[in-house]
Each structure stands twice: as C-alpha cells, then as structure tokens.
C-alpha cells in the first residue's frame, strides 16, 4: 500500500431500497479508527459486485452499464437527512469483483463533526445508464456483497490510508534561526507595516500593522505506491490548513462626504496552522460542505 498506515473497516448494511434507483445505506464505525496525530490521505469504499444471475439475459453493450453513485448521508440535528455526492462511476452490469470508490471527502467531512460522532453513513445508489424512457432495467442486475447472504469476505469495506503527522506533517512554527531553505513545513511569522503603505496611511485606523504568518518549507512525500495512486493528486505541499479573519477599522466615506470609522473583518487573512496536503486533495473543512 502507498500509505504508511493502512486500516480496513468493515461496513454494516443499514437499509436497502429498490425503486427507480436501487440504493444501500452503509454504516461505518470510524471512532478511534483514525489514529490521533494522523492525516487522512485517502479513503476508499470497496464494494464487491456479485455476478449477475445465470438466467439474466445478455443485454446489448450500450445498455449494459449502470451508474453507481456514493453519497455521504448525514442526519441533521432537526432529524432531517441530507446527502452530499462524493463519487460516481459507471460499472458494467455483467462484471463482478471489487469496485473502489473515492470517499475521502466524506471521511474528511465526518472528521469535522463534534464528538461524539455518529457512524459514517454512505448511501450507494445504482441508476440505469443511459437515462431516458428507452433505457433498459439492466441496472437491477448490479448487486453488491452487502445485499446477499455471502460471508464477511464480500462485505463492504472502507480503506483508510493515513500518514503519521509526526513524520509527514508540518512542525508548527518555524524556528527563527533556522534557514527557510530545506526546512520542514512550518508557519513563519511576518509583519506588514500598514502605516508604511501610502494607500493605508490615512485610510486604515486600526491596526497600525499586521502580524501575519505564511507557510514555508518542504513536505515529506509518501513512499512510492505499489498500487496505483489516487488519481489527480499531485505532490504534497506546505499550505495554510486553517485560517481566520483579521479585524480592521477603516475610515469609510459616509453621506455628506464625512469619513466615519467602520469595523471590518477580513476573512482568511490570518494563517493559524500550516499543513502538508497533496494538490487536489481536500483540506479539512467545516462540517457542512
């Protein structure tokens, strides 16, 4: 496996429904499965596609596909349910074997919830492809391991690929005496003197300057994968992982040409934490996407 740490979590089938699109709801108990001080690199949902029944008619190639969609399902505090799309792909209805779906976003969102966190709920729906009144019902032939009496071997699985932040993450604030060249990813302090800027001198009342931070240094790259890496992911870079607003008071022109103080909050100007993340990988975000 390409990650330093690799865990597999077995899923539990909560519900299944058969309508226009057949759907499964899977539950994964992830509490304490993601070790503290680790960074989630990738989460893959693996579903075993059972072969179609021998009596199933062979359909023309065009209609022998189905669209499998994975959504993160969340029960909101008011009891309502909301689903967010995390991955979708076409499968051949006559195929069988393990299919992998990228559910990194779902696990990332789930991690942002306040403890105690409920199990991670993933809804897997299978729709006919192509859409339209003439489309065949071939999608009903797609059945995953959770739907039958098979043993645990065919049960849905969630693979969690993590990196130890101690070895692969950022190191907090940069040491002032250490040269930035070749340093490990860290948060470097910088000062912006607003009063020294011509446009700000009579406009910005507070603060006189901004004590800010930037992310500097290099990130350790994970070992070369034995399995194909997640698509579209670039090298890990040192980026702002958590930001906050900066308050300022400016003189704003009011009616009558009079300038009055006005309090503003400039979002995301303060870097609170730096982290290493691959290009294209999601950074931790607030719970509601």
């Amino acid at each position: 496996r390409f990650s330093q740490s690799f865990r597999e979590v077995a899923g539990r089938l909560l519900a299944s429904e058969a309508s226009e699109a057949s759907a499964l709801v899977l539950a994964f108990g992830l509490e304490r499965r993601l070790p503290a001080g680790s960074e989630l690199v990738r989460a893959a949902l693996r579903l075993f596609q059972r072969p179609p029944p021998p009596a199933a008619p062979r359909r023309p190639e065009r209609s022998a596909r189905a669209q499998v969609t994975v959504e993160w399902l969340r029960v909101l505090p008011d009891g309502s349910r909301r689903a967010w799309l995390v991955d979708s792909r076409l499968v051949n209805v006559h195929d069988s074997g393990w299919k992998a779906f990228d559910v990194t976003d779902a696990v990332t969102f789930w991690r942002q919830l306040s403890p105690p966190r409920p199990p991670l709920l993933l809804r897997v729906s299978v729709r006919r492809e192509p859409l339209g009144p003439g489309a065949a019902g071939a999608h009903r032939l797609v059945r995953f391991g959770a739907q039958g009496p098979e043993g645990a071997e065919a049960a849905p699985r969630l693979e969690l690929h993590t990196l130890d932040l101690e070895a692969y993450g950022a190191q907090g604030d940069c040491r002032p005496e250490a040269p930035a060249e070749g340093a490990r990813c860290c948060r470097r302090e910088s000062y912006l003197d607003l009063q020294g800027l011509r446009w700000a001198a009579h406009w910005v009342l507070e603060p006189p300057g901004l004590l800010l931070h930037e992310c500097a240094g290099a990130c350790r790259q994970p070992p070369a994968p034995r399995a194909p890496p997640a698509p579209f992911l670039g090298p890990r870079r040192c980026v702002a992982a958590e930001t906050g607003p900066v308050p300022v008071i400016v003189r704003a022109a009011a009616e009558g040409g009079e300038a009055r103080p006005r309090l503003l909050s400039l979002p995301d100007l303060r870097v609170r934490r730096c982290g290493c993340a691959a290009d294209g990988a999601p950074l931790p975000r607030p719970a509601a996407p």
Partner: protein
Amino acid sequence: LTGEQVLHSLLEQLQLSQAPVLPGAGAQGAAIPAPMRAQYVALLHRSHGGRSREK
C-alpha cells in the same frame, strides 16, 4: 501575504474599485467610538486565540 492582498481584501469588503483618497486626520484614534473599539478588541482576541481556547 503582501500589502496588495490586504488592499484587495479591503476593497472587496467595501465594494470599491480603488483605495479612497481621504484627508489626513489629526487624532485618528480618538475618532473611533467606544463600542466599536470594544468590538474590535474582542475580534482581535478571537482572531489570535480562538484555536487555543477551543482546545
């Protein structure tokens, strides 16, 4: 972060296309009303220490 980025953020918040040209004011600090000053200080503290308080 550069002065240009701060300027851009300010202009965006105020929906302006360029920095206003305002005459210099003598005692600028005194012109800020007390409630606004208190609100500014509260935001400043939250901006610096929000994370550690959460912990």
